[in-house]
């Protein structure tokens, strides 16, 4: 077959065959190969459950960050009302970081949702193939001599095996993704707990220094704008505050 198909496919196909060879023991009875398929199906279900757990975890972190944003905003208003602009700025800087982090989490949750859908779909296909294999196996056994049946059933097992290898690969990719996300989520949680939340940009998230510097550049105006908004709402603006978004008509923060 090789030579007829392209290089990329040949490389991937060779690897899948290797995976299959590793997984298959020629001494296994045919019925055992069906058992193994059913086991693999259970693994896929477990894999899907793991992705769902990881997603829930991120969603919980999202809601805790949302609370932080509200809390920091209130704190900034209180600080400003109390005349402490420096403290207000610090709170707003943290709020800005939390908001950025929220956006990142949102993307991750969406990604996990897609993984979940894909795996559920793969599980369905694998289940259909295994069910077909079970039926086919019995038909073959009834129709052919033992030796012939062995050959035909092996062929079918290879077809199902390819599907299993493919599902296994998809699961591995999902696991890698959720593990990366979990590691990052844990680190964020620890930083938050330690009160060093503003160091969040130090975390590896695939960003390089340029990304970070750009983010710093763009977060500064956001903090300035937030501050100006609070000032104007408190009637403290020394000059007309710039119009920001649509929040201009919010009630002024509760003074103390």
């Amino acid at each position: 077959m090789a030579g007829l198909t392209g290089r990329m496919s040949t490389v991937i196909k060779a690897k899948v065959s290797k995976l299959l060879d590793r997984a298959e023991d020629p001494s296994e009875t045919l019925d055992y190969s069906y058992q193994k398929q059913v086991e693999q199906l259970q693994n896929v279900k477990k894999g899907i459950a793991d992705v769902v757990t990881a997603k829930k975890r991120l969603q919980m972190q999202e809601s805790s960050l949302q609370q932080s944003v509200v809390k920091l905003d209130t704190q900034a208003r209180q600080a400003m009302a109390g005349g402490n602009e420096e403290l207000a700025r610090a709170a707003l800087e943290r709020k800005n970081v939390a908001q950025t982090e929220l956006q990142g989490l949102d993307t991750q949750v969406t990604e996990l949702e897609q993984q979940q859908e894909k795996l559920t779909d793969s599980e369905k296909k694998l289940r259909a193939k295994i069910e077909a294999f079970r039926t086919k196996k019995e038909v073959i056994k009834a129709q052919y001599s033992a030796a012939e049946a062995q050959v035909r059933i092996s062929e079918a097992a290879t077809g199902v095996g390819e599907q299993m290898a493919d599902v296994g690969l998809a699961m591995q990719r999902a696991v890698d993704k959720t593990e990366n996300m979990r590691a990052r989520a844990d680190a964020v949680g620890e930083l938050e707990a330690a009160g060093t939340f503003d160091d969040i940009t130090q975390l590896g998230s695939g960003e390089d220094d340029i990304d970070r510097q750009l983010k710093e550049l763009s977060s500064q105006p956001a903090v300035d704008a937030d501050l100006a908004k609070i000032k104007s709402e408190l009637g403290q603006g020394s000059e007309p505050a710039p119009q920001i978004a649509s929040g201009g008509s919010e009630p002024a923060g509760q003074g103390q």
Partner: protein
Amino acid sequence: MIVRISGEDQYRLDDSQRDQLNELEEKVVNIVESGAEDGFGDAFATLLQFVRDKGEPVPADDIESSDVILPPADVTFSEVTSDFTGEGLIPD
């Protein structure tokens, strides 16, 4: 000819489409071998779309081995690159 897009589906393509499939794949391989990521995403997406457009999905309860297996749609350039040198998507 049965073509599998990993993580997606198996498709049955007419043998007459083999040349075009090879051509599209060769483009991807050439980019991968050049080591520069430019154009990889587009070329790879075109290859997969060709399979999806021209192929007939194999029913889920139809047990077939694939003649061709392509990497999943979300494969990264570095995964593909390292697959040509031994590691990557599926480690040896």
